[in-house]
């Protein structure tokens, strides 16, 4: 009973949060200051619930609730933890971000409340997706995430935002519709194999060997492409850079950090059934094609990338490709590495998107070549960005090193030597390009525009983190307000001054967590292996 309560909490808490925010929007003048902190609170609660669930249930079998509609095994619990962790990161960073937006008159308190409500719904939908006991309901939940996030992507009603939202909804719905088709076909096969309706995961796995091969092949292909769309895998990846580029920073963090992983979760589940029904070769081939295509695409488009948020988005495509590669390898080690990679990537990419959001607020431009000398203008921000990128490239002590190494090991060990080598080469190109672009943004002397900034930054060395730099921005903001070009500086000056670092605190914590995980995962490791067992073909 207690476990079931915990189980439902991770869906119910965000729903409650959403309700609070919706009420807040109803009030004529929402008291924003206070309500802003509801969402981090909810996220923290659900993360706590997830961890508690994992602790309570460890050692016992899966728990079910709502008459078998909801079930949690180790894999779902791990996914809940991923969602909770990244959700906490994103929501903890959003008050500062939203305040800055409000202060810059780009959003009203009501819009902010609406935004927070949608974010909570988004979190609830993702939690539901990993908790439901049946493939069908997982599909429903994943499609629900698209609907919820559509307005988040298009929140800023600019041309680009609308364009991004349209592409996002159109492409994702199409892809997910393909998954629906596959799902129905699989359902037919299951029915023919004598399964009751409902596409229950465990029943499917149990009956998988009896599924009709021909039908399952079609179903699996469609399911992989369909869920692959949502996971940002080629060929239907194109929504990702646009949506991630246009969505508000915390939302990009959530989408890139967890949404993709949730879709990958569905793929992992489907893979088990497929392997049992068709043997490992079929899914492995499909996944390898998707993986290499995604990696190649990410590498090609990162080379002459000019927009730093799109750059991060393409790097997400790369990492999803790596996950697909690991899934293709399919050994227990590979799957454990894939799961750890989900967590590490979620934390790192979330931090990066939030930092990128700060950069956007500070400089007012998406262009890489218009941002320079960040390290001397905003050392803390630059540090977060730089360390985040290093984490993303898989440098130790960050956990992505351990997971990428695991994936590579598993790849070579399961006879995918050549593919893994090609993937490594592509990853090298991507790493080179990320380093190049980011170092252009971070390094070098501060641009001439902020000469005063440099002075201010240099004057108080001890306290010379964000505060000094924002001081500089105010300075040249206020001097430059008369001059039209630097208007954005005048705008960003105020919020930056009002909220020095609070927006980056979660980022620092998340990166630290990522590093700790990379050195010593402790109990997480056991959970990882248990979760891996859940989706490794026996």
């Amino acid at each position, binding site marked *: 009973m207690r476990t079931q309560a915990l189980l439902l909490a991770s869906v119910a808490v965000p729903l409650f949060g959403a309700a609070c925010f919706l009420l807040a929007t109803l009030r004529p003048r929402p008291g924003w200051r206070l309500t802003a902190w509801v969402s981090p609170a909810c996220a923290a609660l659900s993360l706590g619930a997830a961890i508690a669930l994992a602790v309570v249930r460890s050692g016992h079998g899966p728990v079910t609730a709502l008459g078998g509609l909801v079930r949690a095994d180790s894999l779902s619990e791990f996914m809940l933890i991923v969602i909770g962790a990244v959700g906490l990161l994103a929501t903890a960073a959003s008050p500062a971000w939203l305040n800055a937006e409000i202060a810059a008159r780009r959003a009203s308190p009501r819009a902010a409340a609406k935004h927070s409500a949608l974010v909570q719904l988004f979190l609830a939908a993702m939690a539901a997706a990993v908790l439901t006991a049946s493939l069908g309901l997982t599909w429903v939940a994943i499609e629900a995430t698209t609907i919820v996030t559509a307005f988040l992507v298009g929140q800023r009603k600019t041309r680009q935002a609308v364009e991004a939202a349209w592409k996002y909804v159109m*492409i994702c719905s199409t892809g997910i519709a393909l998954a629906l088709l596959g799902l129905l076909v699989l359902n037919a096969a299951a029915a023919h194999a004598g399964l009751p309706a409902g596409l229950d995961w465990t029943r499917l796995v149990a009956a998988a060997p009896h599924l009709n091969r021909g039908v399952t092949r079609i179903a699996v292909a469609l399911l992989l492409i369909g869920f692959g769309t949502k996971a940002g895998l080629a060929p239907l990846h*194109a929504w990702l850079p646009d949506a991630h580029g246009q969505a508000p920073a915390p939302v990009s963090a959530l989408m890139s950090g967890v949404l993709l992983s949730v879709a990958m979760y569905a793929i992992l589940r489907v893979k088990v059934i497929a392997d049992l029904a068709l043997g490992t070769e079929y899914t492995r081939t499909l996944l390898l094609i998707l993986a290499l295509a995604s990696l190649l695409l990410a590498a090609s488009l990162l080379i002459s990338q000019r927009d730093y948020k799109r750059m991060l988005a393409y790097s997400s495509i790369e990492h999803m490709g790596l996950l697909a590669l690991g899934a293709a390898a399919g050994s227990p080690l590979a799957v454990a590495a894939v799961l750890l990679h989900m967590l590490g990537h979620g934390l790192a990419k979330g931090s990066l998107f939030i930092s990128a959001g700060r950069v956007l607020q500070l400089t007012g431009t998406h262009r890489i070549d218009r941002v320079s000398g960040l390290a001397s203008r905003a050392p803390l921000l630059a540090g977060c960005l730089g360390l985040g990128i290093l984490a993303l490239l898989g440098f130790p002590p960050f956990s992505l090193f351990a997971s990428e190494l695991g994936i590579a090991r598993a790849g070579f060990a399961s006879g995918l030597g050549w593919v893994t080598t090609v993937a490594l080469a592509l990853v090298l190109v991507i790493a080179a390009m990320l380093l190049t672009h980011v170092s252009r943004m971070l390094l070098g002397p501060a641009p001439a525009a902020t000469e005063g900034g440099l002075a201010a930054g240099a004057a108080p060395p001890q306290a010379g983190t964000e505060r000094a730099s924002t001081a500089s921005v105010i300075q040249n903001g206020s001097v430059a307000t008369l001059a039209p070009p630097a208007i954005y500086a005048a705008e960003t000056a105020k919020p930056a001054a009002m909220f020095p670092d609070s927006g980056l605190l979660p980022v620092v914590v998340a990166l630290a967590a990522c590093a700790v995980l990379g050195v010593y995962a402790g109990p997480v490791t056991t959970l*990882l292996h248990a979760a891996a067992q859940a989706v490794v073909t026996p």
Partner: protein
Amino acid sequence: MSPATPALAAAHSASRFWPGIGAHWGLTWPALAGAGTLALITALFSLAVPRRWRAVVSGAGTALTGLAGAAAGVAAVTGHRSPTLSVPGVLPLSGVTLAVDPLGGWFIAVTGAVAVAVGSYAIGYQGRAASRPSAAVLPLFVASLLAVPAAASAVTLLACWELMALTSLLLVLAEHKRRPEVAVAARWYAIMTHLGLVCVLAGLMLFAAHARGDSFAALARAAPHLSPAVKSTVFVLVLVGFGSKAGLVPLHAWLPRAHPEAPSHVSALMSAAMVNLGLYGLIRVGSGLLGGGSAWWWLLLIALGAVSAVYGILQAAMSTDVKRLLGCSTTENMGLACVGIGAGGLFATTGHPVLAGLALAAALLHVATHAAFKTLLFLAAGSVLHAAGTRDLDALGGLRRGMPATTLAFGWGALAASALPPGTAFVSEWLLVQALIHGLHGASTATAITLPLAVSAVALTAGLAVATFVKAFGTGFLAKPRSAGAAAAHESPGSMLAGMGLAGAACAILALVPGAVLPAIGRAVAAAEVAAASGAGGVVTLRLDGLAGEVSPLLLTVALLIVMVAAAAWLRALPARSARRKARLWDCGGGPLTARMEYTATSFAEPLQRVFDDVLAPETDLDVTHHDEARYLVASAEYRGRVPDRIERRLYEPVLRAVGAWGDAARRLAPGSVHRYLGYGFYAVAGLLIVLAVTR
């Protein structure tokens, strides 16, 4: 490793007061653990303490870390056994395995000793300007350097390797706000080091996949049963990976960039300690784990080494940036060491254990000597930069007045580097040449063709090294100052001099009594499974075991000193002497000589540049502007000349261009049209369905 001995004694006493340590933990682990803890504590404190104390804390902590590391290394090479540590919890999914054998111990000891000198130097060099990150990362870098040779599984090696890369990258970035070149250099370094990592990773993982286990023990056990194709693939991959770290041509491109732009104490650590680990990897994997393999591996390594040596020293001879010069000379010395390693492997595979031991011993000794004198040189160059504000030899000169101690240090280092007796490198290169020469007996034809060429490469390298360092010392420190900065140069603070002094002392010991370290090298060679022992021994006189050959640098030096003293005394004893008189230099009667009339470094190197015209392909352009009245009257003539890195021109630029073209072409994949995007999916689905319909 002079600085290490007290620490070793300390470890001894520790084991006495703390029974059990010495017993089953050996001396190595406590020392290494101490090093790690010290590094972490130092890092935290450097973050915490106010700017005034930062440099002191980080420098002293680094020195102590190095001391502990050196103690561990010395304990290992003096034959103290230590158990293999296995920590499954750390590094998720893989776990960490550590072990220190004499081979690893040798590199650990060298690294630790370098770190001691660098640490005490860093106190003065960082000074008030010490930024929080670089002060905190310095000890961590040293710790990671110490950890790499202690790794006993492929995954652990890779983890330590990447930590080393990360920390060094952060240190290279230290001065990026002052010079834009730093960012460029860091970019090159990061990308090349990542390339190296990918190759090592692929090689080791392939190896581990075939060995069904990634601990070195498992790899070594499986090696004999592997197919030659797999073994060769692994070797070539790790050769590329480790070679890029060792700065072997053509993967050296990062080296002459990163070394000049990094802070000098970091350059010293990178050049004297980090690049060695590339060699360590080659020895460990090539000889130790793969167990020899086929002869062509080693012939290839010899060829690479020879080319790197000659090319590196040529670049050094041409360069006028003193730190770039030192960087290129690092490539040279790594090349020489690779010739030794290659020869060792070659002789081991062709069944000449004595020669194999000798060659590898030469390589290992050269690693140590190079570490000693390159530390000294970089530290001295650093204090020049610190004092005169420039690294350009053409703008230096006359430093001997302002900074006599630094001049002495650089001179001693230059002598050591140019392989002249009683210089440090003389002994190791002598051993190397001995090994090569004796290898001709009963060699196969390929070997018989390779060895003389290798010898001549080594000889040419030695000759050019003399020219290079005469240029560096002569134009940089002697003669007249060529710029205001050089004229105003002042001596560095005591801590920096102390660092240089330690390095200089190490140089002296290795130069005069190299025999003292030969037993340790012998154990290392045995651990590398190349030969039973180093093929040389003796303390005062170095004798080859089983071969005719002996040299005694100590005797040589003593003889020189005696003769000099005698001659000086004789001069004094001459009749009808009056005191020395000062006199004007011969200025051809026209006014006093100015600094502008001196030979610069560029002009000094000009004859060599002409000789090696075809290799270096120097670029010169001359614009002459005439008077409008008469085209025979020259108004002004401007001459510009530079010696670009040829390999970079021929190898890297095309690749970079190709990648750029690829990127621009690929941008057409994302034109922004939703129809195109959906089309990708549609065609993919249709194609897939067709395939499914056709195949059953």
